């Protein structure tokens, strides 16, 4: 993150530069697939099926490791046994990083809201940018979430301090 250390981003860069940076970032999202349960199959359908074909949105779903990923999609039931692994792999991702929580289970526990072994929401462990409701959500919903995320990435640092905070890895609050 040379940009951050040199203080370039904290000096409020020129708007066209920020715009170009954001524009490049939003169409080359490397997505780490965290397929856990039913939603993983719908995520697979969104990625691999020619009917949905997510790669046309500029999402590249094959990073070899979380260290190369910008975006992680938590799709499925998060159990208490799984939480340490999720935390560890999230921490390995480089900043700026984004999280999509796919499906009711990852959002809030879903149909297992009273189960003894299920974590009620992945946002208890890692910060989440976009929640997709549904059990499981349709692949189109995941596509929509990615488009929403791209819109947000485009807006970062234009008139707010969000971009610099993202690159420093600080938590960001979006109203």
């Amino acid at each position, binding site marked *: 993150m040379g940009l951050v250390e040199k203080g370039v981003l904290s000096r409020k860069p020129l708007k066209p530069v920020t715009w170009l940076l954001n524009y490049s970032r939003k169409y080359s999202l490397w997505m780490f*697939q*965290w*397929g*856990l*349960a*039913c939603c*993983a*199959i*719908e995520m*697979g*359908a969104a990625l*691999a*099926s*020619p*009917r949905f074909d997510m790669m046309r949105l500029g999402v590249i779903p094959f990073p070899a490791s979380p260290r190369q990923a910008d975006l992680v999609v938590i799709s*499925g*039931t998060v*159990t208490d*046994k*799984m939480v340490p*692994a999720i935390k560890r*792999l999230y921490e390995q991702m480089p900043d700026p990083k984004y999280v999509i929580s796919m499906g009711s289970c990852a959002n809030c526990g879903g*149909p*297992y809201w*009273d*189960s*003894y*072994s*299920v974590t009620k929401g992945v946002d208890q462990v890692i910060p989440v940018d976009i929640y997709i409701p549904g*059990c*499981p959500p*349709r692949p189109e919903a995941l596509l929509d979430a990615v488009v929403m995320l791209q819109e947000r990435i485009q807006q970062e640092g234009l008139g707010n301090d969000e971009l610099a905070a993202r690159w420093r890895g600080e938590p960001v609050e979006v109203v």
Partner: protein
Amino acid sequence: MTTTQPPSQLPGFEVEAGSLGSLADARLAVELDTGDMILNMGPQHPATHGTLRLVVRLDGERVIAADPVIGYMHRGYEKLTEFRTYPQITTLINRIDWLSSFANEVPFIHAAEQLMGIEAPPRAQHIRTLLTELSRIATIYLFLGEMGLQVGALTPAFWGFRDREHVLNLIEGATGGRFHPNFNRIGGVKDDLPWGWIVECRAAMKRILDGCDDFEDVLVGNEIFQARTRGVGIIPAELGAAYGVSGANLRASGVDWDLRRDGKPYLSYNELDFKVWTHQDGDSFARYWVRLQETRESVRMVLQLLDGLASGPVMAKVPRIIKVPAGEVWVETENPLGQMGYYVVSKGAIGPFRVKIRSASFSNVSILPWLLRGLYVPDVVTVLGSLYFILGDIDR
């Protein structure tokens, strides 16, 4: 896996005397002084269909011992069923084996119906059979494509997803749910089939048959595919049966056993004419071949059902609030992954007292430590793929 202990002292990885010498090339081991290595696959690994974790002990590239660590998808089903009413449980058990959700509902609904003494009308039975077979096609079709992915061919995976959409469209058209239909009710099904569905179903079945021919040409007849799968991961029939392996995995070992034909009659399978396919080899290739033939057989069953679809109502008369009389019942069915059973204990309340779920994948993966011993690392992925388990079905 980072560990401070030497691998030989880790629990579960004790070396049997003399096993090292027979497995590895002794001369090479002396020259290069290869030590054992512990490889941790998972809990997030694409080859393990989700969250199965495999701790594999390697000598060079050969597996000495493999230890599956399960429980990463344990959601506590058997406890949760004690706090739900019977209609609510249908929603829940859709998600045990999420690929063939409709087939999961059937044994549980049958158990409740048997306890209540209700019989679903013939048309409801036919629709149930139809949707069960469609979900079987959707499940196995994904396997047919993904198996190509396990040996390094990407195209079949795309085909699998492409043609599966046609079947999912049918399920969605009939039930409203693309993935989790939740269509069974105690005493029948929720709705009748929509107008024009049967014509669409015939067209989709033709596509599936064409797709099966494609898989046969591209994968089964492929020399590389055969080299990777033939003779790899052989399950002997007696051993497989002793481990509780069921379904296509056991039929690929030459055991002619299918609960649709041999079990207690359920749905309308006794009206249908179908063949149970077996293979003598018991290796990864046999498992693929048997599933390919089963898909075609399922298409045949669907077409037979469409020809002779019974008329009449789709719901029997049931009380508005469902209370199941006290009693115990065990119902087992042939699911796409193998034998699935529910042991339901009722005490006369609106929900069951206790439900024991026997799922196919749990028993199917229990043979893994035996099966993976002595294989090469790339073959581990092939064998895992060919056993075809769903993590929700293992952990519940």
